[in-house]
């Protein structure tokens, strides 16, 4: 089983074109969805059990219901297409292959939250998706799927693409709002949450591309249909991005609760030939690393959590026995150090010191005390950073030392990474 919902039209040639999309049932949810009362639409999405696909897994219908009903301010919808979490590359494919599915979901979401304007915030490097989504928007305007009185339903929705400019922190929703307002992309203090005070201090809902891509299907087919896949707490399907040491890396849409080893061995074609599984990062770089022996679990929110990690953005990075876990921590901490916005001290300083120590361990071996020093730094960051970027930057260090402490110690004893010395880089 695969490709039930958001990838269900991926096999159709040129489905990014409006005529092809409409010819295959596209935009058919609008008549139904836009004539429902907004509250009814919110209840439907609540009943479906859909959870946000951007990383935090917050129930989508519930988030929508937080928008106050009694403000005179305009409401906004923002689609988060920043896609910068290492290991995650699904939104790019969702936009490139089927942009109208996203627009259809956004039109419905706008109606549900009472927004007349929506922005699609796409990372600047994604020139292809920016062009494809922009073209889709033009087509949709020309044919009355966007603009005033959509398909005669009396609902008005305007959508525009906003290109990013290269910063991971932008994916964090409040930083995203700042950059959309033309500011430096620094996170904001919460509360107030964006649903109450977001873009231009107006009620704003931020949702991931995949979350929004699910909406038209739920409206067309109902909540029970959606819940036939997955579990009580993990309903529906998930696009899992699989990369690293596998034979067939790629995006695979599977029902939630599909066994993780099935994803690796069947969908991704197994660990690359002649090698065996060592570790998996199940949900993007911001979640703890699982050793192979803990990977015999179902791929859903609750099972991954029980195993000590998180589903996150479903960016699965697979590593075989040749992987040096000190090197993994060093690589990922390098990422967070580069992407830290510098606003709060624990994150700005913590990521820098962690990197310096890991770099030392990797290149010259450092000292035995460094391992506990690293843990001490992570302890001083955990839960103490202004936004989750800092808190999650410690994951590869903490889980790396927990499961592979002996590798860190070997680095100290050997005066650096043996493997790196062999490979010459």
């Amino acid at each position, binding site marked *: 089983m695969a490709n039930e919902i958001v990838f269900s039209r991926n096999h159709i040639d040129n489905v990014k074109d409006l005529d092809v999309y409409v010819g295959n049932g596209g935009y058919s949810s609008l008549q139904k969805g836009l004539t429902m009362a907004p509250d009814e639409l919110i209840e439907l999405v609540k009943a479906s059990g859909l959870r946000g696909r951007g990383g935090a897994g917050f129930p989508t219908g519930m988030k929508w219901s937080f928008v106050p009903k009694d403000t005179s301010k305009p409401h906004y919808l923002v689609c988060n297409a920043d896609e910068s979490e290492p*290991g995650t590359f699904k939104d790019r494919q969702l936009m490139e292959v089927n942009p109208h599915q996203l627009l259809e979901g956004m039109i419905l979401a706008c109606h549900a939250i009472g927004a007349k304007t929506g922005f699609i915030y796409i990372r600047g490097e994604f020139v292809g998706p920016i062009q494809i989504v922009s073209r889709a928007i033009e087509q949709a305007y020309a044919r009355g799927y966007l603009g005033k009185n959509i398909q005669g339903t009396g609902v008005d929705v305007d959508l525009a693409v906003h290109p990013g400019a290269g910063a991971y922190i932008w994916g964090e929703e409040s930083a995203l709002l700042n950059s959309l307002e033309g500011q430096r992309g620094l996170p904001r203090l919460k509360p107030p949450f964006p649903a109450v005070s977001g873009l231009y201090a107006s009620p704003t809902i931020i949702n991931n591309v995949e979350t929004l891509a699910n909406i038209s299907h739920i409206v067309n087919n109902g909540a029970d249909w959606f819940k036939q896949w997955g579990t009580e707490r993990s309903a529906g399907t998930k696009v899992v991005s699989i990369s690293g040491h596998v034979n067939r890396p790629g995006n695979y849409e599977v029902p939630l609760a599909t066994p993780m080893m099935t994803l690796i061995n069947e969908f991704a074609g197994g660990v690359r030939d002649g090698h065996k599984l060592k570790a998996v990062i199940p949900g993007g770089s911001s979640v703890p690393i699982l050793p192979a022996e803990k990977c015999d679990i179902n791929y859903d929110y609750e099972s991954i959590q029980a195993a000590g990690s998180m589903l996150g953005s479903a960016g699965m990075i697979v590593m075989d026995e040749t992987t040096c876990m000190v090197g993994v921590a060093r690589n990922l901490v*390098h990422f967070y150090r580069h992407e830290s916005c510098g606003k709060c001290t624990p994150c700005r300083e913590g990521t820098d010191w962690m990197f310096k120590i890991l770099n030392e361990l990797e290149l010259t071996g450092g000292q035995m005390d460094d391992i506990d020093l690293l843990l001490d730094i992570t302890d001083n960051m955990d839960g103490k950073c202004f936004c989750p970027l800092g808190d999650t930057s410690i994951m590869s260090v903490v889980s790396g030392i927990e499961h592979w402490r002996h590798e860190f110690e070997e680095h100290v004893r050997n005066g650096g990474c043996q493997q790196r010395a062999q490979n010459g880089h």
Partner: protein
Amino acid sequence: MAHLTAESRQRINDIAARYPEKRSALLPALYVAQEQDGIVTDEAIIDIAELLEATPAYVKGVASFYTMYYRYSVGKYILQVCGTLSCELCGSGQLVNHLEERLGIKEGETTPDGRFTFETVECLGACGGAPVMLLGDKYYEKLTIKQLDAIIDDLRFKPASDHPEPPQLVPFEDKPAGAKST
């Protein structure tokens, strides 16, 4: 170094009209400036500030926050190799070593003829195609050293004027992230 042309100004005003507040057009406006001159010049910063009703210092502060705006001159072709985890696991280190040797420069530097700038960058959101390189607006995925050499040869030996666009050896359209799903 130049101020914004009338055309660039018009484009920025058009973009600003799409937003409830002008200042939201700042990031797109910086792209317009960069398209005009290859980098964001001091003069352009002053012009953008005037158009969007901000101070030049404010505009400069925003421009410096993001990695995709260049304030100082860079090569005609910017080779950006992803160094983040999935790409490192799949051999981006070899690509980086090879580029350094071949171009005779370290990362972040530009060749003396002004043709190539080479950078390592963080995750490009295409990890299924690791190792990945971004050149202009093209993604090159599952890039081998041989392909990399072909790209450089192609860009190196032709007069710059013949080559307004990067070559399309592995256009993304033919090869979506990590190829096809079953």
